[in-house]
């Protein structure tokens, strides 16, 4: 018996040592070996820049805003939100909303959180604040009221149901943020390095960027509050905007991974246009819209050959006389579909083409308007022509030699242009030009069209469209907000108006 008790004692000792500390080493075991526990502001900033610009370039650029402003057309119904104001299925109305918060906004907030008050990171913090405004203004322009002050506070404050802020409040805060952030930039402090894909951390350039964005936002308010618009436009202009192409905010894409490719080129290739499709089996039935191609053609715009091409015998031809767009609002594939114009694969759709975030062409056109309104000094027509010149000049840098517009072509075109007549006539001239010059930044073109009404577009009216045959004034919220942020969603809808494509955002006052 004694041996048995000895054995039992051993056993007891073994069992107890095994379990004496039953959670030893758990913390280490529960640490992901493939992840870091710290935000690296620079690396995450690069991601935030990419994400702000690659958000929904298919669903919103091409099939949403790009269709609304009649740059693009598709004969299919599923991607037909922009083309014919139909919504059959998919995330077309809300992909941008989801993408903005989950990627760019969350990331930029991580950077702001990580650099707030940290010695040696004041410039990074300020640049992140400016980029945050850039990210948010596109979102609120598309949807109107969105969560802003309480967005992404679940991490820091456990707020799982962010309230929606009015667009007015968001705009006021964005303008103030731009002013304060650009004011706090300090060339003597460290800044971002290569991770800043736009300016390499150059704080002067970021200051101009902030002021230019301020001008863009200020001009947005011309319908809803011209006084405020004037005040902020003047503030922006006097602080120094991107007036020269050398100040342009441009991102170069090295290509390679999808995320390192020009997101517009990548998505458009993915959706429709490729060597293998030969203009015929375009996946989403897309082409350039007839409105766009006809306008360029009629005005002998040299950019037609930079952007558009038709497939003939296995290659893309850019001759202006061959170009023809597809009418919006088709529900059947037209017989001549393969021979219609589509984006040139070697220029606009080159995966390592560059992307214009904000440039002097747009700024000059806005200056032309400000000048026409008498808000700033200088000659409106000069600004206008400078805008055109900058836009044409930028194409080679963005899209390569094939897209280049020669000095001679520019001069010829400019010679045909003038800015005259009433303010309204001048507005039409400026903003029709805006529609061409800011292409392919479809979100900005769409916002600018809603503000100014130019160019005058003829809406289509297909059976079952959701707007009664009018061009949508906004996009609709994601179903997940309806189901899991119900109260705040309902509050927003009761304030802003029904969650419809026809409801107007705050600055888009009906006139």
């Amino acid at each position: 018996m004694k041996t048995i008790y000895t054995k039992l004692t051993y056993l007891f000792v073994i069992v107890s040592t095994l379990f004496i500390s039953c959670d030893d080493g758990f913390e280490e075991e529960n640490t992901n070996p493939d992840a870091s526990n710290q935000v690296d502001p620079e690396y995450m900033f690069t991601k935030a820049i990419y994400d702000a610009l690659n958000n929904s370039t298919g669903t919103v650029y091409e099939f949403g805003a790009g269709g609304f402003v009649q740059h693009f057309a598709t004969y299919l119904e599923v991607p037909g939100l922009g083309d014919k104001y139909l919504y059959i299925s998919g995330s077309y109305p809300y992909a941008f909303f989801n993408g903005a918060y989950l990627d760019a906004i969350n990331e930029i907030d991580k950077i702001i959180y990580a650099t707030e008050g940290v010695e040696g990171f004041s410039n990074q913090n300020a640049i992140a604040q400016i980029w945050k405004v850039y990210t948010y203004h596109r979102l609120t322009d598309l949807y109107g009221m969105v969560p802003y002050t309480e967005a992404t506070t679940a991490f820091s404050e456990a707020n799982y149901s962010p309230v929606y802020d009015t667009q007015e409040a968001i705009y006021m805060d964005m303008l103030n943020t731009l002013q304060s952030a650009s004011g706090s930039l300090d060339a003597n402090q460290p800044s971002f390095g290569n991770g800043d894909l736009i300016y390499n951390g150059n704080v002067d350039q970021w200051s101009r960027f902030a002021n230019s964005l301020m001008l863009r936002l200020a001009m947005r308010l011309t319908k809803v509050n011209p006084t405020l618009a004037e005040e902020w436009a003047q503030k922006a202009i006097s602080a120094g905007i991107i007036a020269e192409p050398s100040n342009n905010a441009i991102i170069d894409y090295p290509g390679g991974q999808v995320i390192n490719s020009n997101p517009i080129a990548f998505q458009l290739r993915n959706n429709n246009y490729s060597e293998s499709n030969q203009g015929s089996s375009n996946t989403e039935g897309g082409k350039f819209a007839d409105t766009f191609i006809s306008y360029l053609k009629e005005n002998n715009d040299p950019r037609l050959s930079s952007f558009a091409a038709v497939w003939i015998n296995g290659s893309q031809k850019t001759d202006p006389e061959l170009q023809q767009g597809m009418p919006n609002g088709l529900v059947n594939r037209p017989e001549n579909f393969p021979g219609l114009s589509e984006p040139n694969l070697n220029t606009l759709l080159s995966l390592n083409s560059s992307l214009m975030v904000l440039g002097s062409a747009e700024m000059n056109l806005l200056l032309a308007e400000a000048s026409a309104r008498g808000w700033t000094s200088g000659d409106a027509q000069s600004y206008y022509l400078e805008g055109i010149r900058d836009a044409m000049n930028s194409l080679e840098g963005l899209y390569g030699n094939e897209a280049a517009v020669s000095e001679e072509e520019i001069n010829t075109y400019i010679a045909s242009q003038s800015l005259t007549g009433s303010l309204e006539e001048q507005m039409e001239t400026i903003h029709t030009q805006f529609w061409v010059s800011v292409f392919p930044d479809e979100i900005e073109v769409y916002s600018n069209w809603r503000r100014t009404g130019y160019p005058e577009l003829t809406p289509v009216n297909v059976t079952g469209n959701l707007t009664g045959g009018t061009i949508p004034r906004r996009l609709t919220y994601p179903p997940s907000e309806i189901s899991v942020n119900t109260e705040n969603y309902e509050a927003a809808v009761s304030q802003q108006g029904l969650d419809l494509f026809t409801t107007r955002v705050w600055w888009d006052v009906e006139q």
Partner: protein
Amino acid sequence: MKKLLKHERYFQRLTSNLKMKLSLLFLFTSLFTIQARVSYSQGDKISVKVENQRLEKVLSFIEKTSDYNFVYKVNEIDLLRPVSLNVTKEKIENVLQLIFKNDSISYQIFDNQIILKKKPSVKKIPRRTAKTTNYQQLVKGTIVDDQGMPLPGINVVEKGTNNGSSTNFDGVYEIEVGENAILVFSGIGFKKQEITVNGQTTINATLQNDTEQLENVVVIALGIKKEERALTYAVTEVDGDGFTQAKEVNLADALSGKIAGVSVSNLTTGAGGSSRVTIRGNTSLSGDNQPLYVINGMPMDNTTLGGSASTSAGGFNIDHGDGTGGINPDDIETISVLKGATAAALYGSRASNGAIIITTKKGSFNSGIGIEFNSSFTVDSPMDFTDWQYEYGQGNGGQRPLNQSNAITWGRRNWGERIDGQPFVAFDGIERPYVAQKNNIDHFYENGTTFINTIALSGGSEKTSYRFSISDTDTKGVVPNNSFNRRIFSLNLNSTIGERLDIEGLVQFNRSKSYNRSSAGDATGNPNWVNMLANTVDVRWLDPGYDENGYEIEWNETPYASNPYFVANKFKNEGIRDRYLGQVSLNYRLLDNLSVRGSVSRDYTSFDFTAILPTGTLYTNNAAGEYHGFDLTVSETNSMLTVNYNEDLTEDINLGVMAGGNIRKYQNEQTNYDGRQFIIPFFYSFTNLQTSTTIPSNQHLTTNSIFGSLDLSYKNYLYLNATAREDWFSTLTASNGADSDNSILYPSVGAGFVFSEVINKPDWFSYGKIRSSWAQVGGGLPDPYTLNESYTMIPSSGEPLQQVTQVGGQRLLANANLRPYTSTTFEIGLEARLFNNRLGFDVAVYDKTTTDDIVNAQIPVTTGYEYTYFNVGEVENQGIEVAVNGTPVKNDNFSWDINYNMAYNKNEVKQLAEGLNTISVANSVGNWAEIHHEVGQAFGVIKGYSMLRDDEGNIVFDSNSGFPMRSELKKIGNSVAPLSMGLSNRFKYKNFALDVLLDGKFGNDIFSVLNVYATRFGLSKRTLEGRENGLVLEGVDQNGDPYTNTIPSTDIRSYYQNLKNYSDHFIYDGSFVKLRQVVLSYNIPVEKISLFKLQSASLSFIARNLFVLYSKTDNFDPESAYTNSNAQGFESFALPRTRSYGLNLKFKF
């Protein structure tokens, strides 16, 4: 100790003294050389020295130290009676005499088998007086069982006398009888039979099994066997034979309809797909809700490697198969289903959804080689549920296609002219007659075939037994070029070393290969969208789906709806899975009533998967294809140590104590390889891609546990049981003063009372027991690394990129303040057997509530995240389970057994999180319907939209679109069936047996994506209205004013296309009754065939999923699930259900 568990007896018969070494070579050579019958070890002398040991122990000791085995009915022998004995090298007869001298037990020795039985009670048979010795004739014969196996040890008594004999090893008896004698044949486990001699000198008899008489022994947690009567909770055991005839490739599917409270969703994902089994409803909002599977006492991994299919994805939305798919049904001895938490308390958190305990077949000691061979072949033919309209053909706006461009644009549209047999142009530009094509499903899908072959060898020497089996499953799917092959090698060894040490080992190796598993869900790369082909297009015109350059041929307006033949012929996916399952356990008896058991098991799988979207796939970038693949290894290792102690406290009270600990380690290491655009066309290598990424991921987690149990029994009718377990989870944070905790202690108690032993019961009442138990089980967080936010570098060809770490593709907000959840079950059960066991029933009612459930809740994207874990869920299940079995007819040649089971489970989600009323679990293709957990509703409600109506019930129209406005998102159905039942019948006539199984589920709903599209494309019969004269829609507008909209017939498509916005139009009652299985088997009377020592042989006709007897769905099978996740309730273009029929052949040598 053999308690007449079937099968083993027959192997035992072939006792052999050959000291067999377990070399494989020997096994195979012996296959041909074995002449199993050798002499028996009659000469064994027994030495026993015990004092006041339970009889049970003494018998067991004799079995272990000699070649003798005891056979007896548990309830006839008082196993707990104390015995004292001191013999050295005594003959067995003398030992038995000593043991049973004062007992009313008689014993008979047949070779090495000792049969114990109650002596006939003394209410007497009238004695034949003087003539008793006056025998007149000798009668001989052979007694066999219903399988034709000779029965040793059968008593042969001349009726009315005590003149008796018994059969020998070969089932042969000899008896001298008087005139007019009637012979009574009886044996334990068999129905008594009487035969009048009537001058015959040879009387052979077949005795029918009478298994109900036997005391059932079931396997419960940790490999412990218990008498059924001692259980305090619901356990249902299914005999392995039930799975070996009409086989399902996935074992779990074979449970369908067999056990009350066990719900099986028969997925339509093809061979090698996974299963979804839930027991007593869904308990956890985020857990998988599936039971724990345990093989021979050790848990195995049943995760769906590579992830379950999603409800709405396309491309390669494939069910990769789960762990139960790796078990060979022919290896299974029994399956016990432990339904309640009590039963599973000892297995810990993962058994909170119940446990399925699989015991594999073993060889038996002292036997020659037994060979089993089981072969089955079935043809799997696709069932066509569609019932489309064939009045109007392909076209648009009332026109048929007259050129190729139209034919392609209208490839899926059926808004053409009346079908008239006149010419039209098809998508390929060829002019053909405009006639209905009604057999596209039959034409596209092929008949599948399934071959399953198993060969098993088993046997054993004095100290070692073994069983080795090889199984091969070869399946050809219904989609062209889809196949699945699985080989399983399994070796089971048992050995006794010395007097006190037992060693048991199981090694299993599986290799399965799947080719071209079919996608489900969305259209891309999913061949099952062939259902949407226009009704005047013959699917064979699409064959082979590619042009002379190997590029996909366009057949409809969007390349996202892939050409089904292109997918079948050119898409490639291949999964190769190697699985090694090994376990060793050592049991050391320190004392006769104290033993220590240590075991280690490891379930290791390596799985390589590659999917190729080939060059020429139109929807891929530049039609240049894509590459997706992963290599993963998953392992689960359990190390367990237990101490068992058993003591008779008094003559009537027995105490059993067990204590132990377990360490569970789970590791999942996966590397994903993805890329786009093959540079050199048609060369499908990861090296040949324009862009590619390689991303590693891993999950490591540990659960440590200590546990104990205590069993008390009083006499043979009162049983008490209590358990406790504490688990520590590596996935949670140790208590830090806030809410967090990483451990949980949970208890259980139960009692069982066999009241039929103590009450004065009428004769017809054979057995009655009432049982009750209360149990808790704790559970941890399934995912590691979610407590704290972390940041991951992602592949970049430019500057480095960092992002917030995603967990399983989710933007998951970290939450460190989590603690384990608790599931509490209370149940009461009543079981009874009546009329000499001809009728029996088992009823259980239970309440099972999960509190503090860790909920993976969707949160607004505006938080920057999509999901987070909250620790607040509460889910309640209440239900009743009824099982009734009976034998309405039973005579010598014919018997009819019937089993019916029913379960009703009421589920309610009581609480989610503060301020959170609903969480979204999944959405359908197109987001038309969603699965939610909503407070106050059952688990998994289907939400969707309907047409908006005003207070008067008028439809409210949107004057912009001219169509009805859509209601808010609301509940439109329940995804989980609350009521299920099964009915099985077994008819036996002589050597024939017919098994018929019906099962059904009731009360759930299904949202059908197929019908959304069928309506959109004009295939559905509901789209006939308005084709000639248009439709007039009436209601009110947004302002409440009367509103009328006339849709012209040429534009009718837009109306039906828009119907998708009102999901309630596509919700169907999912109730069904199916004729699940029919098996007609014939036992070949092998005694007439003296070939190869054949012991038994049977041939069966088998059929599964024969008919849907009741269903309310249109155009699809009510069982159309295509993912084994919690997201049930959608139908979305999965493979067609197949009807399988074929043959099964079994031999035993």
